[in-house]
């Protein structure tokens, strides 16, 4: 004679068992959905409050700040409106400007990697390289990217090269510092093991120091890319005539604050997207490390 409570408890027990093979998957999906929902609360709240605060006039702060619906409309025309001669010079130019900026960041960032990673490895690995390069780098590092603007315009003129120079410079420092740190911290016995197995100096660098430094290198890349986005906006505001930074400053001058806000949000989303891309590459490259941290 089993009591009803007993039956119920055994019933749920069975269900739990049947579900258990799915829990792994549904847990991940559920966690992802919850994380996104959690992340959206704050920005949605800000937009709603902002919209209601400006309801009626469509502006805040005495007409300076347009409400979100007006920003959204401005962005739609900016993105999908007809291009050509019209009253709205931004109409239909969003994608082109995004691509201008993204291309500059891409080129500058790539150049920063190509120089920053080898120099960083050299500094972290070789005492002479460290002595010869590190003090100069530490001297140049505190100079903010904005302070380089006059120099960049004077040397490169109002051209793409100037913007790319500033982006490279900005991204270079975090990349070089983090790479050097990673190369310095390589476990001594890994180096010894590779020498014992007959590896030459170059092989040790390529097959041991470089992979062992990759976690630090990726930290540098993420910081560097963020600075790259800062640099591209600064450069475009002053030193070139296209891209999101140029539109930002230009729209401000003609009082198009709706375009200014839409531009700022675009920059934020692009930065987020590019960081996400790096993160995915990191997860793929550093698979071994993910397993390590999962176990510990």
């Amino acid at each position, binding site marked *: 004679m089993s009591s009803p409570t007993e039956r119920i408890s055994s019933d749920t027990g069975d269900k739990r068992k049947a579900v258990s093979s799915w829990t792994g998957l549904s847990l991940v999906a559920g966690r992802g959905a919850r994380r996104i929902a959690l992340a959206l609360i704050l920005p949605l709240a800000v937009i709603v409050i902002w919209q209601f605060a400006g309801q009626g006039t469509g502006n805040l702060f005495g007409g300076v700040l347009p409400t979100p619906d007006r920003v959204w409309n401005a962005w739609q025309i900016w993105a999908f409106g007809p291009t050509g001669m019209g009253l709205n010079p931004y109409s239909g130019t969003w994608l082109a400007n995004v691509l201008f900026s993204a291309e500059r960041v891409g080129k500058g960032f790539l150049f920063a990697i190509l120089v920053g990673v080898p120099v960083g490895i050299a500094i972290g690995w070789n005492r002479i390289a460290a002595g010869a390069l590190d003090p100069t780098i530490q001297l140049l590092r505190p100079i903010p990217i904005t302070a380089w603007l006059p120099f960049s315009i004077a040397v490169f003129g109002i051209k793409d090269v100037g913007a790319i120079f500033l982006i490279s410079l900005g991204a270079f420092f975090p990349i070089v510092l983090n790479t050097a740190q990673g190369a310095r911290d390589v*476990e001594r*016995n*890994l180096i*010894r*093991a*590779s*020498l*014992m*197995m*007959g*590896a*030459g100096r170059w*092989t040790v660098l390529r*097959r*041991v120091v470089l*992979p*062992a430094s*990759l976690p630090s290198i990726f930290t540098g890349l993420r910081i560097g890319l963020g600075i790259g986005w800062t640099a591209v906006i600064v450069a475009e505001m002053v030193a070139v005539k296209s891209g999101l930074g140029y539109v930002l400053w230009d729209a401000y001058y003609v009082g198009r604050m709706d375009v200014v806000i839409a531009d700022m949000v675009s920059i934020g989303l692009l930065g987020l997207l590019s960081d996400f891309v790096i993160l995915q590459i990191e997860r793929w490259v550093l698979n*071994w*490390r993910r*397993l*390590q941290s999962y*176990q510990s």
Partner: protein
Amino acid sequence: MGTITFNDVSKIYSGQREVRALEDVSLTINEGEFVALLGPSGCGKSTLLNVLAGFEKVSSGKLLFDGTPISKPGPDRGVVFQEAALFPWLTVWQNVIFGPQVQGIARADYESRARQLLDLVGLSSFADALPVQLSGGMRQRVGIARVLVMNPRALLMDEPFGALDAQTRLSMQQLLLDVWQKLNTTVLFVTHDIDEAILLSDRICVMSARPGRIIKTIPIELARPRSIASLTSPEFVAYKAEIMSDIRITDHH
């Protein structure tokens, strides 16, 4: 091939306080001999192994390997480290073939040997695993396989089983006995475990600390092939008693 000769070797670390890690060490290890270096931690036994491996330079004296002075590390002296020191980003297989690969040996010339060795240490089915997915004992078996694949003239083992639990240590000792009894390579085995030293070696060199010196050499004449069953034989116990009185373990109770 595989003769090691220490001739009045000293190693001094200069610094704020000078440390005499090795003082006038003279020792010859013959071809195919298994010598255990026994002593408390900090007695310089790892230093002795490191200079022999070529990781550090001697301060004075002569150190020869098959008659040639040692100047740098190389695949003729395979080192097994205490914490295995595998490359965490490479799979077991990639770790094992790292040596032949960086030496530029053709794949066909090492592949079958590497497979055999992986089989010998019982890890064939883990070839594609990453080191982090293995237990400590399994990692150490990879560490042994990657050294043996290079066919070294000497094996230098620095407390290789020191970080393992007692049971895993026993199975690793048995494995090493089996492997060594097949290959007969010269072995220098650093340990602070008396049982391990007696079980494995032909000769035990007992070291004292500060300055690091070899204070006694004890030949172990237990019959070979040995196995971990030898651990309880009366001869074994007699050796253990002798060594314990030699190193005069002070009783604090």
